[in-house]
């Protein structure tokens, strides 16, 4: 059976597609630049424990005697390149760990979105009928509530329910789950559309006639063809999740100050911004903005590149 139906799978397999994208991105300076910066961020996030001058888990990391020291070029204190925060932590280290945390939450949340989206999208598209109508109706309604609104409300209520201390323990998990669940329809819709398009094609019919099971058809035959559109929204979704996480942390509904993400860092820095300790808010803000900016640029570039029908004009 395997030998029989394998040639029926369209030739657009993953490695060639990836190579195609990479070769195209080399021709576009802005996109290449964005990709490099993004890769740098990923690397820094992965290696944060190795790169950070101070270990966030060690006891002497926090030392109130060093609190609110300005950056190196203003204080001359070579121990802290970007200065220290209000609790005397080395700002550079905190930012490295914060970036790691923000990216982790963003990626995990989007993985949940992807998982839910793939399952529901495949189900909806392949089975069709009333189930499809119902699921897509739900998707519409869910999408019409903005993620931010849902997340703020849900997390606020949970915080009120659990109390502040207990909530902080669970913050990361809650963030991932809420952001993950809130946006499944985006993936589900795209997968459903792909399934509907692919379902009509001959190779799926052929596979079905040969008695390949439905589940197998969906995962082996249809899913590989949804990679391109998923790739396009993946980057933008992760960027959105990171922004949402930052906003929630800023409101005090996300990561606690003891384990700060970029948003939480900015939040704690804002109060000191007005008393002159600008660096505590400014450096994490710049870090966050650049990260989101390059991800958006990459997402845009992928979309323009993988759906080439945009961008034409008129005489």
């Amino acid at each position: 059976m395997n030998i029989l139906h394998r040639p029926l799978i369209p030739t657009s397999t993953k490695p060639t597609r990836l190579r195609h994208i990479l070769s195209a991105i080399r021709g576009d300076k802005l996109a290449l630049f964005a990709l490099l910066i993004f890769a740098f961020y990923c690397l820094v996030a992965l290696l944060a424990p190795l790169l950070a001058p101070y270990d966030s888990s060690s006891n002497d990391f926090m030392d109130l005697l060093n609190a609110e020291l300005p950056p190196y070029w203003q204080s001359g204190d070579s121990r802290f390149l970007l200065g220290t925060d209000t609790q005397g932590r080395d700002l550079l280290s905190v930012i490295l760990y914060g970036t790691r945390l923000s990216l982790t939450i963003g990626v995990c949340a989007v993985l949940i979105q992807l998982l839910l989206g793939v399952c529901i999208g495949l189900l909806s598209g392949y089975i069709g009928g009333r189930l499809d109508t119902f699921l897509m109706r739900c998707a519409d309604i869910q999408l019409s509530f903005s993620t931010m609104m849902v997340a703020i409300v849900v997390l606020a209520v949970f915080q009120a329910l659990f109390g502040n201390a207990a909530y902080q323990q669970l913050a990361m998990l809650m963030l991932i789950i809420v952001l993950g669940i809130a946006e499944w329809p985006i993936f589900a819709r795209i997968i459903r559309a792909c399934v509907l398009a692919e379902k009509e094609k001959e190779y799926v019919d052929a596979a079905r006639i040969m008695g390949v099971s439905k589940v197998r058809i969906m995962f082996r035959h249809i899913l590989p063809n949804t990679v391109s559109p998923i790739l396009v929204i993946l980057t933008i979704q992760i960027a959105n999740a990171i922004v949402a996480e930052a906003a929630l942390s800023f409101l005090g509904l996300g990561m606690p100050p003891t384990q700060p993400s970029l948003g939480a860092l900015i939040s704690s820095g804002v109060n000191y911004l007005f008393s002159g300790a600008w660096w505590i808010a400014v450096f994490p803000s710049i870090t966050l903005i650049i990260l989101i900016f390059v991800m958006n640029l990459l997402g845009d570039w992928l979309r323009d590149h993988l759906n080439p029908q945009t961008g034409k004009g008129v005489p």
Partner: protein
Amino acid sequence: MSLLSVNHLNVVFRQRHQDLQALFDVSFSVSRGERLAIVGESGAGKSILGYSLVNLLSKPGVIDSGSVKFDGRELTTLTARQWQEIRGKKIAMIFQDPMITLNPVLSVGDQMVEAIRSHTRINYNDAKKLAIEKLAHVRISSPAQRFEQYPHELSGGMRQRVIIAIVLLLRPEIIIADEPTTALDVTIQAGILQLLKQVCEDNGVALILITHDFGVVSRIAERTIVMYAGRIVEQGPTLEIINDPQHPYTQGLLNALPQMALPGQRLNQIQGNMPALNNHPSGCAFHPRCPYATDKCRENTPGFVFSGVSTVACFAIEDMLAEFDPEGGWQGEVEDE
């Protein structure tokens, strides 16, 4: 002098890596009041030709070289502003699908009045009167009422009539109709074609009818141009071409008509497909599908010869003529004589 003359027109689509040529060396002319048909399968470049005559090619497409003269005036060098005066007023165009040709958010009346008022100084009420007159002229019932309606309230056939009325408003000298009945029900196609023919006759307007359907051509056009893969392959009087097609492609097109097949017989379709723009064959573009193709066809592009019936670009015809014609005797000695 001819009203519109096209000479050695080349149209290319500029791509980042390579230019794709869509029209090759197209030359023809239309006289005042003449009805000309341009025939070919989809992808032959008929619509691109139509759009390039009014400078409405979609974006990467440009006129690379050649000239289009209207009433002696060169059109390819006009500015956007000058084009605005030509379009609608001198050369008008009817599109394929009436369902998407009218702007859905503007009323029929708005779309008629704006056409008049952008070319003539006239007040709204006079323009409206003129518009309603034209609606009646294309045999639309209760025109005053239709004037107020929105496109979605009209049927496809009705919309195409409205479009014809809009086009007539400005008394153009040429109408280019790009497959005007393809998107319509078979039952109303004949009516629209009849109307189109009649309004052209009544107003002395020249018509360039772009179509893939020889059945349509025979009813309307006096002269026919057959296109294949961006080139003209045959042109001549419609009746003669239909009775005695010269080019193998024209023969194929005519043979493929349902009327030509006996009941129960399969339609005689031409084998193969029209080449894509990025995959243009060498020599005569038709040779991969041509039953008479020789090595010469694969290597060289045929020029035009007059066959006695029509002007044709085909080596087979050229060779045949040479055999009969002592003047060109040196060509007759070739091959298996």
